């Protein structure tokens, strides 16, 4: 086993997801299959290879630090499930 049900539950918490018992079992079995397949990579000799993080090597993209027009607050809040005034309202964070 590459990954246990407990680990799946832990990863789900990290990803802010929750699964019932049946889903956890299904995901555990599917993730195991997928992770076993990934083992294939151990056959590849990567000695001295730099990890590639971007398809096209680029320098950092800088621009002048000038203020440009941005989205008006009302439009930025227009999709919020629970806006209040100029804020996003959420359930209570601290008891």
């Amino acid at each position, binding site marked *: 086993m590459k*990954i246990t049900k407990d*680990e*799946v539950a832990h*990863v*789900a918490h*990290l*990803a*802010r*997801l*929750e*699964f019932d018992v049946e889903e956890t079992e299904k*995901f555990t079995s*599917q*993730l195991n*299959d*997928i*992770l076993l*397949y*990934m083992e*294939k*990579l*151990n056959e*590849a000799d*990567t000695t001295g*290879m*730099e*990890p*590639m*993080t*971007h*398809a*096209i090597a*680029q320098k950092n*993209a800088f*621009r002048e630090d000038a203020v440009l027009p941005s*989205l008006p607050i009302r*439009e*930025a809040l*227009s*999709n*919020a*499930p*629970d806006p209040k005034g100029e804020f*996003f309202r*959420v*359930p*209570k*964070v601290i008891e």
Partner: protein
Amino acid sequence: MELCERTIHELQQIIRDGGASSTDIVASVFRRIDAVEKNVHAYIMLLREEAFREASKADEEIRKGNIRSLTGIPIALKDIYCTQGIPTTCGSRILQNFVAPYDATIVRKLREAGAVFTGKTNMDEFAMGSSTETSWFGVTKNPWDLDRIPGGSSGGSAAAVAADMCIASLGSDTGGSIRQPAALCGVVGLKPTYGRVSRFGLVAFASSLDQIGPFTKDVEDCAIMLNAIAGYDPRESTSVPVDVPDYRQFLGRDIRGWKVGIPKEYFIEGIDPEVETLVRQAAKVAEGLGAEIVPVSLPHTQYCVAVYYIIAPAEASSNLARYDGVKYGYRSTEGRDLLEMYKKSRSEGFGAEVKRRIMIGTYVLSAGYYDAYYKKASQVRALIRRDFDEAFQTCDVILTPTTPTPAFRIGEKTGDPLQMYLSDVFTISTNLAGIPGIAVPCGYTAAGLPVGVQFLAGHFQEGKLLQFASAYEAGADFQKRRPNF
């Protein structure tokens, strides 16, 4: 022949000659939609009223002699680009009611070119899938056989072009999501070089791999569409400031003396014999046009699927962290505190495949596993790119199958995610290396399903790719068909 069955370049001529108005063309497209959309389900949302309104504006411009590159042409958009004032769902329940307050750069560019939008097309949820079966809005069917999948993730865009429910469309390609459905639906699909087209306003899946490109009925239309969308965008820091040529100049030229690389690693066990025969026949056509076939090797091909299904989910798990029920998107009413609200909103809002990939991504990036998975995959990715750099020292273009099989049946692979992932085996390497690739129809199986050949070229060599594809298309030895349903 109905107007909706025409190509962009044919319609441009018809418009210029006064043979039809944009309104006539849009009406023809919507007549086709009314006749077949109930069977195909290529669209999440139709923009009928808007399209007729834009068409009459286009007709006004045409009367004034003000004809731009896409004036009055009906184009469909994958529902992954932000469109101001029009919902953008990304095929997900979590964005079901999301209305972007701005246009994606490519949407703005198409508007400026005069395009008329017919609607937003169906897709795998967040572009995660190879069959358009993971959409919250239902499955899209392949117009060539309604029991089969159209490919994915841009299945709606491919099916809409194949069924003449638009003249051309746009998709996005992270691991084959343009080329694979193009091949399975018998249309042309191009994934440009990483950085060639701005992704500002594209809902992000895997940011080091995602790229936008067109679906068209022929190669000339592909060049016209690429002209309209390519170019640097100051709002997108990974778009590359490289000059954009007029891609139409590459059409109709010969390919005499070109070296065409055939990688042996792409003709493996498990490839459908009919697909292999048709793709090898395409190589013969190129040879007949004066090109030389040379064997090349891409020795790390066997690792592509494993590398991709580490890197793409890792990036996705990070990109999709933004869906938290706070700023936009679905919020569950069940959560009693903030953490519970996050968990319930995300668990109710995302479908199974998206959750599976977030889980893989979170796992491979989590403490203790990073080196074994993500770092290792990124190192092998560098080897895959080096394979291509070396191969392009000895050939101009590479020719491969686009998919190992023709379109599979709806439901055939949904129970086994790994089998679904393996259907991307020939398209993934292109995204990992960042190079451009194009799928072009190369014939039909005995059962009448379309097959696509894939051509690949070096970074920013779209011109070369289109020159080769256009020569192949003109020299191909099969009669083009239309789906009949």
